[in-house]
């Protein structure tokens, strides 16, 4: 009983429970057919949400008002940069990935530069940055129809025993992120700033550097995500990142991270991402129209947040 209780107290358990429920509902509809394939597909799609979700989680943990709205534009531009640098040749894969990473890092650094120099809320800084990035992407990626190198596309779609390799790597990455968050000075600084920025500053936390690193990290993860997405879907396009604005914020909140900052939860990001992807799979399996699918997705997100997100502000 105490085990169940301590498990129920973990905020991330609910997102996994939700994912399980949605999965059960779908396979009971198909009569058990395709259950395994669905998990494989869900894992490979959830990866992309998890990667940006972790970046967004670190940003949101910095405290109220901290959010990275430039992720969709960042993903779009990085996917175009990666495809252009790789130019379809296997020998350029690493260079292309590094270029996407650098592109993301630059975007993250610019975001923080705007926040710091203009002393404006991160929402507005990342919003104005995303306007400009979007235009650069439209102009740079116009008519871009470069396919990813075959080796890279195969890597992004590679599976071992039905488990996407990308998912395994992302699990390792999230374990690293969890360790960084809970056990390293950087992660503890992020949590401290989110709990009380002034107290953190008085305690000697280098607030400026930690925030800079966090926005850059979010940018880097967006950049990598863009390159991987272009590999997985075999091509870059301007709108490739659009759905990741809602997705990245939603998985953070559904996963049990506090929007007020100072409390983060890495496993929850996985649970919430699987939940969202399986939810879409379920609605597609039920054969609902695009309108109903959007409507239900929105209602379920609002519903889940209403149930899960209602915590009293302690300050």
């Amino acid at each position: 009983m105490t085990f169940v209780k301590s498990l129920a107290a973990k905020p991330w358990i609910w997102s996994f429970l939700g994912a399980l429920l949605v999965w059960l509902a779908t396979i009971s509809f198909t009569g058990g057919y395709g259950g395994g394939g669905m998990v494989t597909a869900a894992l490979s799609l959830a990866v992309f949400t998890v990667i940006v979700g972790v970046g967004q989680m670190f940003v949101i943990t910095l405290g109220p008002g901290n959010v990275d709205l430039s992720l969709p534009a960042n993903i779009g531009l990085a996917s175009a940069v990666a495809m252009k640098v790789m130019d379809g040749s296997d020998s350029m894969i690493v260079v292309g990935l590094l270029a996407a990473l650098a592109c993301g890092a630059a975007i993250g650094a610019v975001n923080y530069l705007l926040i710091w120099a203009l002393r404006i809320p991160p929402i507005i800084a990342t919003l104005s940055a995303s306007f400009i990035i979007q235009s650069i992407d439209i102009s740079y990626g116009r008519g871009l129809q470069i396919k990813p190198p075959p080796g890279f596309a195969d890597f992004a779609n590679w599976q071992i025993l039905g488990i996407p390799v990308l998912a395994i790597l992302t699990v390792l990455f999230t374990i690293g992120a969890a360790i960084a968050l809970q056990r390293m000075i950087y992660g503890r600084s992020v949590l401290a700033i989110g709990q009380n920025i002034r107290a953190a500053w008085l305690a000697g936390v280098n607030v400026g550097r930690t925030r800079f690193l966090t926005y850059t990290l979010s940018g880097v993860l967006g950049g990598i995500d863009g390159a991987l997405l272009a590999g997985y879907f075999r091509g870059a396009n301007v709108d490739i990142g659009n759905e990741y604005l809602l997705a990245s914020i939603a998985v953070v909140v559904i996963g049990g991270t506090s929007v007020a900052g100072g409390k983060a939860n890495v496993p929850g990001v996985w649970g919430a991402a699987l939940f969202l992807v399986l939810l879409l799979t379920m609605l597609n399996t039920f054969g609902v129209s695009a309108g109903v699918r959007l409507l239900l997705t929105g209602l379920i997100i609002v519903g889940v947040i209403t149930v899960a997100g209602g915590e009293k502000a302690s300050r």
Partner: protein
Amino acid sequence: MTAIAPGTTPTSSPRSSAARARLLRSLLPALSLALVLIAIAWLNPRAISYFGFSLMLNLAIPIALATIAQMFVISGNELDLSIGTFVGFVGCVTATWLKDAPLLGVIVLIGAIGVYALLGALIHLRNLPSIVVTLGMSFVWQGLAILVLPKPGGKAPDWLLALMSFKPPFIPFPIIAALVIAAVVHFGLMRTSYGVILRGSGGNPAALRRAGWSLLRTKIVLFALTGLFGVLSGMALIGITTSADANIGNGYTLLAIAGVILGGGEFVGGRVSPIGAVLGALTLALAASPLLTFMHIPPDWQVAANGAILIIVLAARVLISRRER
């Protein structure tokens, strides 16, 4: 740092300099609009005419209304990321039901404002992050819009077409509309006592609660006003475009936030300005498309122009605020 003028006492001089900085700051939205107008006049003098303004500012009315809608939630320290798809949904209802079955259309639109009021109550009662709730709602509105109007089409009601193509003498209609919107909202929010309470709910909620005001009520009122102006924006948009499309309002979410901030609004603390918001919306409407066209810059950079203006104005504001201290 301004030099101290001879004859003024040291105590009054920083204050007058701060007052000047404050004045400059409140003039910033008007100055940015004037700058954009001057640039347009310089590049293409013929655009500065009755006909030119009617054309250039055509889409400014729905943008201004959406900006005002966003301004209401922002004055309560919340953010509405669904206003764009909401405008699209209203547009779809306007081009279908409001024309074919006016009573049903009116009921649906009033119901939509009711949904906004309920969202305000939900966000307050459960202490939810408005960003996430409204992001979720943006999917709901878009889904509903597609259900109402699966393919682009429909037709605006005749009275709406007549209203939006109204040509008053001397002053183009968009300018009159902008003046009326700014004046009405300015009076309501800045000059009435309940307007002060509404802004106070963003400025100092704790003090307001201790003074006996219901924060639940202020949040509901602010969200309902957002819904109301969102409805007006969607209807105005359809009156101009004459037909609808489920994605017609998608760009408005970010434009509206940018407009509020350009107009001198702040994210927290209930510091907003209705007149500034309308000026901000006009600036964005002019800078995004006519100015770029006259400068022969390809439309790819339209969105970037909005971002650049936002950054320039905010940078100017930082320079001014530094003197305000």
